[in-house]
């Protein structure tokens, strides 16, 4: 159902302040990267929410399939020993 006349879709990532990663904020349509960036500024940082913006063509994103999420992520499911809470440490032992 996607239309041929709509401008390409871009995903917008905002770094809210220095020291933090860019986080997905939403998406927008724009004819090119430069306009996408300007539109993203007006749409997602009207209240100083960001110090840096990324715009990425939505078509450039490869996503894992929700139908396969069980089998895809399953290998990590039976490995609780990857978490520090798996290990029993005697009471009173410090800095561990």
């Amino acid at each position: 159902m996607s239309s041929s006349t709509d401008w390409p879709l871009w995903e917008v990532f905002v770094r809210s302040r220095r020291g933090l990663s860019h986080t997905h904020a939403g998406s927008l349509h724009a004819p090119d990267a430069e306009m996408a960036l300007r539109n993203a500024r007006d749409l997602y940082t009207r209240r100083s929410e960001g110090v840096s913006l990324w715009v990425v063509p939505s078509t450039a994103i490869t996503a894992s399939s929700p139908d396969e999420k069980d089998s895809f992520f399953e290998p990590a499911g039976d490995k609780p020993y990857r978490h520090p809470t798996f290990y029993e440490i005697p009471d009173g032992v410090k800095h561990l």
Partner: protein
Amino acid sequence: MAAVTADQKTQGTADTADAEHLAAFDAAVAADDRIEPRDWMPEAYRASLVRQMAQHAHSEIIGMQPEANWISRAPSLRRKAILMAKVQDEAGHGLYLYSAAETLGTSREELLDKLHAGRQRYSSIFNYPTLTWADVGAIGWLVDGAAITNQVPLCRCSYGPYARAMIRICKEESFHQRQGYELLLALSRGTSAQHEMAQDAVNRWWWPSLMMFGPPDDSSAHSAQSMAWKIKRHSNDELRRRFVDICVPQAEALGLTLPDPDIRWNEDLGQHDYGAIDWTEFQEVLKGNGPCNEQRLAQRRMAHEEGAWVRDAAAAYADKHAARPGTAGAAAQHVEATA
């Protein structure tokens, strides 16, 4: 008839797969998990969301009109800057919601076409005119107030992109409501002519604001299913009553009267009772017979048509630059360098 048997087998397998998908969907909704765009969902759930989100997005951008009407005549630079920021926010809210609706497989063009053809609705409230400057205040206080009451529970809606858009919108709506309240307060405490203007605006906007919550529960077409799917979390009447309870003390603080002699505290229910709503008026406005239905749609179509050359020019510019080697990604590199 081997082919038929094979078809039946395929059909049988598809049904089993659908049943499994439906069970997973129902379980996710029951567990208050969010449904995300690429998850399987019942077609009726998808259609219901598209209908509601499209109507919501259209309301945001049509809602720019009654207020923009007063930008050039705002009484001070302060009020003018505030009103421009608010109208710009409404455009932003429309864009968040269009993007969220598009994750369901519809397109921006399709949504706008349906709005322009009158095949998707926007909130009836925007079919009322803004006759005086005080209407800008009444819209902020009452219309945005009703919208917030409706929208806060939508932040927990079962569809992820809609819920996320609503969180962003609700944060921004709070400014809209407060600026309206402050504007009305200034008028209410001003000259007697200003006070009267504020009261007149509240008189005209009160009942249409109550209608924003939609028809009563026993005659609301979509409510029961939407609540089962956790798209809606509270019934129309429940939210309407909550809104009345919020507004009564706020009106007192403004020194203005709500135009309903039947509003009184009900000790037993711990809520306010209020008078009967004129649902005939609501149905008439919905049918297109409100004071501004034609004007709003005509203005929207005109804005779209008159903006066509800008969209064409931007697309032509993008095509020209895409054809030139070595220019792609220049903007992105620039951002990285300054990050």
